[in-house]
């Protein structure tokens, strides 16, 4: 059986950044396993710009952003296999994978980095009633057809869900000659970035209908139209508010789900809120030497933060392989507790002995809050109280904790994150 120090599952932005970082931290034996025909993951179909503002201080397209990391990986001679599907990862880190050339093969890894990304929620997850004709696509499927293959999936489009891919596709379909009639969003706020609403909808005069959902799909062979209705506070359609839009295409941008079937099978504990693994400050799961980063851990808005997170995972995996990972000597584990408006935090626990000088804690809020405070409590004491004009579920939040700060509280058990009015 072949052996590698670190096997990285997925060659998208997370996997690439983790690989580069692990190499820079002294690990030579690294293998990336990628199921698609090229490295770069979903970035390859994200041909719009806006990537890399944080990482490279310039605006890149998705493929350009990916190429920066692919080039680094190649310069660092990091091994990878394309068109290779990982079928199974055992609890003791034997990775079973398959491709056309090697058949079914096994690799023993010392450390594994999970970087499989996420998938789109499908129609079924929403139980949208109506017929099931051709012409209903997840926004990402349409994006692949248009951006990578040059095919138009439809001419007249209604989009359900205002996630970022849906917003981006509203603009793309318009630029390619389709008429995007409306974007309907079930929630009273958009799930996408503000800048995408402005640049992809407002600039093209595409209406965004908040608190609206699709209540019927017409057309037996191909979509002929959809009916949209306003919903009440519980998400139930309000009778009498139905509006019919004739169209041949319904795009769905109704959420992303981390792809953790492999993780679950190998015994990684999941956080039901993120659908991603529970991790500690090292982005390590409950299985020693198994790390997670990027959208498989929790869905991000910006790839820059994926790269940053993945670099940390790569570094920590390198330390683990080298046996340099600090012992959690004091045995102290601090629990991060999301409450009152904060849905989750990544990581979920901190061993201060193992953390870097600064640790970025990322989280999302459960609703739109205006003129509020993001507060962090060390046990009962409020230590961070940051005023915000607005926080929304569509934009990931972060708070940086320093080691110095945490060490000042030797008996600290719980760090609580919440949104407060004052």
């Amino acid at each position, binding site marked *: 059986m072949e052996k590698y120090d670190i096997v990285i599952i997925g060659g998208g932005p997370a996997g690439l950044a983790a690989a580069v970082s692990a190499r820079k931290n002294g690990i030579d034996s690294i293998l990336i396993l990628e*199921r698609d025909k090229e490295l770069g993951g979903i970035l390859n179909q994200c041909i719009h710009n806006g990537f890399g503002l944080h990482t490279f201080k310039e605006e890149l397209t998705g493929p350009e952003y990916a190429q920066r990391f692919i080039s680094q990986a190649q310069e660092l001679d990091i091994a990878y296999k394309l*068109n290779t*599907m990982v*079928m199974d990862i055992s609890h003791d880190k034997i990775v079973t994978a*398959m*491709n*056309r*050339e*090697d*058949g*079914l093969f096994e690799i023993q890894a010392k450390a594994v980095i999970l970087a499989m990304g996420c*998938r*789109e929620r*499908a*129609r*079924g*997850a929403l*139980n949208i*009633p*109506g*017929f*099931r*004709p*051709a012409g209903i*696509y*997840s926004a*990402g*499927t349409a994006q*692949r*057809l*248009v951006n990578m*293959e*040059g*095919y*138009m*999936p*439809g*001419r007249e489009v209604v989009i359900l869900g205002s996630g970022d891919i849906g917003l981006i596709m509203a603009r793309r379909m318009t630029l*390619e*000659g389709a008429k995007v009639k409306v974007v309907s969003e079930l929630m009273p706020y958009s799930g996408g970035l503000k800048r995408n609403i402005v640049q992809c909808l407002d600039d093209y005069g595409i209406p965004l209908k908040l608190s609206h959902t699709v*209540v*019927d*799909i017409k057309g*037996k*062979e*191909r979509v002929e139209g959809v009916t949209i209705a306003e919903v009440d506070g519980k998400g139930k*359609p309000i009778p009498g508010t139905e509006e019919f839009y004739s169209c*041949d295409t319904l795009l769905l941008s109704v959420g992303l789900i981390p792809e953790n*079937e492999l993780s*679950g099978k190998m015994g990684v504990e999941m956080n039901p809120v993120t659908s991603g693994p529970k991790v500690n400050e090292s982005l390590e799961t409950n299985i020693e030497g198994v790390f997670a980063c990027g959208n498989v851990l929790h869905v991000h808005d910006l790839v820059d933060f994926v790269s940053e997170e993945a670099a940390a995972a790569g570094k920590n995996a390198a330390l683990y392989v080298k046996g340099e990972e600090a012992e959690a000597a004091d045995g102290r584990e601090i629990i991060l507790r999301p409450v009152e408006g904060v849905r989750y935090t990544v990581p979920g626990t901190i061993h201060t002995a193992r953390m870097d000088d600064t640790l970025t804690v990322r989280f999302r809020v459960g609703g739109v809050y205006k003129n509020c405070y993001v507060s962090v409590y060390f046990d009962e004491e409020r230590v961070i109280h940051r005023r915000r004009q607005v926080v929304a579920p569509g934009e990931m939040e972060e708070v940086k904790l320093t080691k110095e700060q945490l060490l000042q509280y030797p008996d600290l058990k719980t760090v609580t994150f919440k949104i407060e009015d004052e």
Partner: protein
Amino acid sequence: MYDVVIIGAGVSGAATARELSRYQAKICVIEKEEDVCCGTSKANSAIVHAGYDAVTGSLKAKLNVRGNEMMEGLSKELDFPFKKCGSLVLCLDKEDYPSLQALYERGVANGVKQMRILDREEVLSMEPNVTGKVYAALYAPTAGIVCPFGLNIALAENAYANGVEFRFDTKVEDIRKTEGGYELHTSKGTLSAKCIVNAAGVYADRLHNMVSDEKMQIIPRRGDYCLLDKSAGGHVGMTIFALPGKLGKGILVSPTVHGNLLIGPTAVDVEDKEGTNTTREGLEQVIEKAGMNVKDIPMRQVITSFAGLRAHTETDDFIIEEVKDAPGFIDCAGIESPGIASCPAIGEMTAQIVRDKMGLKEKEDFISTRKGILNPETLDKEERNALIKENPAYGNIICRCEMITEGEIIDAIRRPLGAKSLDGVKRRTRAGMGRCQSGFCSPRTMEILARERGADMSDITKSGGKSHIIVGTNKDTL
């Protein structure tokens, strides 16, 4: 001139075709859709009922019990997924206990074997997720589940292998009596046949009424379903029913042969014979009622919902007989639940009527077995690697949710009566049937379909007809 034309390539038509292909006869199956298994046969509960539901002495009762007995053997002969998982009919209220007992007695009278009435503790020890309110249950170990597509496709492929012709996209517009038989006017020209089998599902009344003065009415009875991800598949081990009511067997909760969890159906009579649209009320009802019998169903794991139409008749029984005022025209109509369970026996009975009518002689070279699409997951590592070495397409995963390889998809397209559309591939291989519902694999499956069929990407459809996936190329209208 055909000896027999069978109208409809659902399970009833395909089972009849397969049984008739044992005999020396020129047989053709015509189907208005592009593939087999496109109507009621593709959207149902996929349950091989034990046979205690139907009124004793009815055709439903007789053919259900017989079909149930035949199914396991047939699944081996024709290589399709079947599992004898057993079923429970729950009695939640002590007051309803007599009805449960009556069901047991009816089962005994119908010839169902091995049934037992279980008390609350026994039920909960067998199925811990059944509602704690359960008082007793009827346990039928002979009940099972089947892949309805696999069953239908296997029957059709075997019939084809035994010389039965299939014509798709062929809709019967009129039938006229002629000397020595019938003339069928179809959307693809005229055919003549000595004998016709009417296995047209919800359309069987239209065809029947073309030749008979004794009018038939088929009422499409819609049922909505929700299908849950495989992660929820182990929620119950058996098919769980409520005590039957007026409109059928109520909402069931069942594992599927592929490891998903299925809940449904509703029962709503509709006018539209193509009215397979789900409704909000229907889906809500499914979720609510399923939850009354089985607790903690993880509804967040729903991956798709669908609706099917049952071909219901006022007589509430199967109609399998030669039409009195239309000799040589054999109805195989009103096939609703337990149609899937009964289908092997329905095929047998319908074929016998035709055989006796026409005095058909058995063939000597009937091929009784058929090999399904190879599922590489059934192979061990060495066998699988040998397969990939011989055909690397088996090393290339296309559908990542169901782990379906390019090799399986190519087999599905190339085999006789092969897949022509995305849904055709899906029904044969499960590619696109998983949790992402073809989000990732559909563009790749389209490429394979286009390549294998020598077609353009723009010709590829979801399910034939005008169900095209793409409508043009970027900027082509600008």
